């Protein structure tokens, strides 16, 4: 893997901003995209990437973010369907190899994982953790 990666993060909520702060500090080039510019307040002062206000389901917004150069795209908004759409556009239209969609609904997560999309479900991760935690006694 390259030392310095070009990473697009869609959704600057609690998860997105935390990932943005972390990866920027690691020296990667980050572009954060969110519908509302207010959301970027969650990024700390050391964040050195770009902030783009816009709807990532629009082609022109992704093109402005220079998606064709991206090594990674993570779609982490709180809307499953936006994440699914953005991740698939990145994968199928721009050929981005490493793409992930955050999907809260576990059933939808399973369906899209079967369709060949990398997904992360906060619900399933929490469930796994709790199940392990309970058996720890």
């Amino acid at each position: 893997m390259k030392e310095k990666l070009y990473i697009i993060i869609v959704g600057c909520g609690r998860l997105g901003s935390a990932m943005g702060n972390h990866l920027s500090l690691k020296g990667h080039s980050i572009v954060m995209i969110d519908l509302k510019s207010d959301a970027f307040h969650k990024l700390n002062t050391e964040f050195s990437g770009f902030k783009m206000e816009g709807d990532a389901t629009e082609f022109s917004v992704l093109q402005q973010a220079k998606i064709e150069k991206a090594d990674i795209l993570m779609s982490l908004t709180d809307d499953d369907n936006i994440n699914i759409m953005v991740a698939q556009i990145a994968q199928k239209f721009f050929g981005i190899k490493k793409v992930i969609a955050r999907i809260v609904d576990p059933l939808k997560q399973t369906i899209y994982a079967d369709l060949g999309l990398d997904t992360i479900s906060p619900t399933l991760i929490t469930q796994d953790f709790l199940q392990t935690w309970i058996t720890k006694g």
Partner: protein
Amino acid sequence: MEIIIIGDDRLSYYLGKTFLAKGHRLNIINRNAEHCSYLAKNLKATIINGDGSDPDILYQAGAHTADVIVAATPYDQDNLVICQLSKSYFEIPQSLAMVNDPDNIVVFEKFGFKTISPTFIVGEIIDQLASFDSITHLLPIGEGKVNITEIKLTSGCPILGKQLKDINLPEQALISCIFRKDDALIPRGLTTLELNDRILVITKPEIQSDVLRIFSAD
């Protein structure tokens, strides 16, 4: 046939009425509880209140047995997910998506879904009406691959008095009908075009502007 409609309030009502009139069985999913009770009172259909992109709600609406699904919410991401769940998970044979942002049409087509984009259609019509006064009606059909245009021939129009065979029309265009006074004529090569004729032209969209130029009086 069994049809599921997921859509915004007015659209699902009018679409629903049309499908019911044709004798289809109908299930409607709508997010708005108030509108659901209105639909339930006014349509002989099963109404489900909820998020139509939720697989559980789709199942409740009979997605596992439906023949056709129409995804017509105001959000393209929801319509895309509805179509994908319908095809891959519920295996509904036919799905139609309303695409709000015309730029997204290519996305839906890439995933193999039929689309209709009201924004695109209305935009095209307004654009054409604004630029050519003599054009009174425009209709894109076949997923926008063909346009039907009605053009009124006004004075100054360069092809008045000419026979059809002498008009240099591009290959991808056809004058299919002439409305003259109260009559409709199916034209042949020897038919002559007259003032105030309204002609119905079928064209491919890419040459439409060339065709319009032939008939416009400028």
